[in-house]
């Protein structure tokens, strides 16, 4: 579904990704772990198409299409969702308005009819219920005055409503207490666990992976994938630390 080959990228002339190769198949939940500064967030931003992240080599194909050739909103319409480590505040714009416009913009790009206000609210209610987020929160402005945990849960509601085929979740577990972590993890399972979807979970810690069991785990270090294994690799990392595992690799 997603095929990254020999990808290199830089920010402000500084090379961050360095020949990264990774393939994620349909139905797969793939965890990316790695030390600080390894390039995890850069990978997420490059996949999302963030301006300023310059691809200097390699290719990314998504459902057979050249992902790097698409604008960020085209990638979204093609089914790519990026869960932000630091969700952004948009004052004066309610979550309902934001998501309805975003969803309808995606639908327009795909040649579908826009959802009416009523249809959208029904959908939003259903997804919010799934993540134990009350509708009042959706009426509030996008991430404005949200706690860290609320922001992450709101990201998951966005994901539920936009219903992507591929999610890149960048440290979605950071800043969550145990209860919120469970809610978010179960949300990921409910939304993304499907034979025709896939997800890339970028995380520092094992704890999210206890709720969302990854099919495979890769270690990202110095801008490339240095080791890939099964779920047990995450446990090994947690017990032995990056240095030991990478030395062994």
């Amino acid at each position, binding site marked *: 579904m997603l095929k990254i080959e020999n990808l290199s990228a830089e920010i402000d002339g500084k090379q961050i990704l360095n020949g990264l190769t990774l393939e994620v198949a349909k139905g797969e939940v793939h965890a990316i772990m790695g030390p600080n500064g390894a390039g995890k967030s850069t990978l997420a931003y490059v996949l999302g*198409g963030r301006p300023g992240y310059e691809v200097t080599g390699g290719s990314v194909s998504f459902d057979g299409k050249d992902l790097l050739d698409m604008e*960020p909103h085209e990638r979204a319409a093609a089914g790519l969702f990026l869960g932000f480590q630091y969700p952004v505040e*948009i004052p004066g714009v309610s979550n309902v*308005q*934001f998501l309805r416009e975003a969803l309808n913009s995606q639908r327009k790009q795909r040649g579908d009819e826009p959802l009416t206000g009523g249809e959208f609210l029904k959908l939003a209610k259903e997804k919010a219920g799934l993540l134990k987020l009350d509708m009042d929160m959706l009426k509030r402005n996008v991430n404005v005055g949200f706690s860290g945990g609320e922001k992450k849960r709101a990201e998951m509601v966005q994901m539920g409503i936009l219903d992507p085929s591929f999610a890149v979740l960048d440290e979605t577990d950071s800043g969550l207490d145990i209860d919120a972590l469970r809610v978010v993890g179960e949300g990921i399972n409910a939304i993304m666990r499907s034979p025709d979807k896939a997800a890339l979970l970028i995380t520092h810690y094992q704890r999210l992976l206890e709720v969302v069991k990854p099919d495979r785990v890769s270690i990202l270090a110095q801008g490339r994938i240095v080791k890939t294994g099964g779920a047990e690799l995450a446990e090994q990392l947690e017990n032995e630390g990056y240095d030991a595992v990478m030395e062994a690799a």
Partner: protein
Amino acid sequence: MNEQVDIQDREAREAAAKAAEYEHGWSSDIETEFAEKGLTEDTVRFISAKKNEPQWMLDWRLKAFRLWQDMEEPDWAKLGYPEIDYQNAYYYAAPKKKAELESLDELDPEIKRVYDKLGIPLGEQEVLAGVKGARKVAVDAVFDSVSVATSFREELKRAGVIFLSISEAIREYPELVKKWLGKVVPQKDNFFATLNCAVFSDGTFVYIPEGVRCPMELSTYFRINAENTGQFERTLIVAEKGSYVSYLEGCTAPMRDENQLHAAVVELVAMEDAEIKYSTVQNWYPGDENGKGGIYNFVTKRALCQGARSKVSWTQVETGSAVTWKYPSCVLNGEDSVGEFYSVAVTNNYQQADTGTKMIHNGKGSRSTIISKGISAGKSNNTYRGLVRVAANADGVRNRTECDSLLIGDACGAHTVPYIEVKNPGAQIEHEATTSKISDDQLFYSMQRGLDEEEAMALIVNGFAKDVLKELPMEFAVEAQKLLAISLEGSVG
């Protein structure tokens, strides 16, 4: 759905009423004759004669003209423009340089694109663009029969509301006009207002009798021969005791005008317990992306909140004009009277806006609210200039001012110039100001969710301006949102 239909009905009624007025109004004779360039007493006499004005009106104009000759153009605003040669301008119905369009196909594609984007129906587009015979088309397209127009006029008449062009009002209701004209904005108020007194071309007169709630929003939206009346417009609205009126001025469609100089005057009077809501969307031609051309818009708008508990709300969305000089104000004489000013001003490319308000608190317990949202992009400059004044014997006055500036790009300017003069120690005055930039984070976040760059920008800007936009009547609000987005086209990326 019902809401939609209601609005259409209302618009239709308004259009019908205006159309009916035009049929016997001034529009037919205006097209053929005009005053030569330049401004002398003869020009003033010519204008007055063209309008069959009574002697007192001519005298009033001439007095203003003499005052004006000794006045100087103000230069305190943060605006820069070439010196205006007042003798090299038209003051009455400048001759049309272009022939009427045969069809919309002849319309400048750029303007056509904006019309489409705003969602203006074809019939109205023809009227706006000045297509031959279009007024009839538009009217026919909107109504089935003249009876709609008649019933609308009758509805207003039954309520006792007077809604006329000011020229007609001068002829038909001279006592009413004489009583209030120049009472809110005195003849010698300022250079531009005085000029307007001498040469005003036309405008609107509204009178709401005691205890009457005007049964519909009064709109100049359909007064589309604005090419002729827009230059020196004069509006007078009087709301008697306990009455209410909501008045909409302007149009979201881009308005071109051969006349570069505009100087309008709007006077509002609210008596005891009366309320006037005055909403403006201004989208005169702003000039091109290199700052060439564009309207100079020098407007004096002021409301007299004369009676106790009277209330006036100014709401404006200013996106057009190369130069905007405009301070809709409230003189709060009545006890517990209320003044409100809600403003969104957008400047892009080389546009300059110096706009704000004056809240003059003379009445005890008077209150005012000011919310100003300035959006600057390109190489433009956007200034909020506002005065809050509290008289010594005005006890219990409250004011809250919020000035927010949003910058797009790094070549534009936002400025806030608040003046606060408080002579009563009990007054509560709050002033908040913020300046922010549209962040790359916000744009990318929105785009990652599916919005293209333009949509993302529109969403963020409309969120910023929401507190003001929500004060607009519904039919204006939707178009105003689209307008903000269009005005900022090309300002990112």
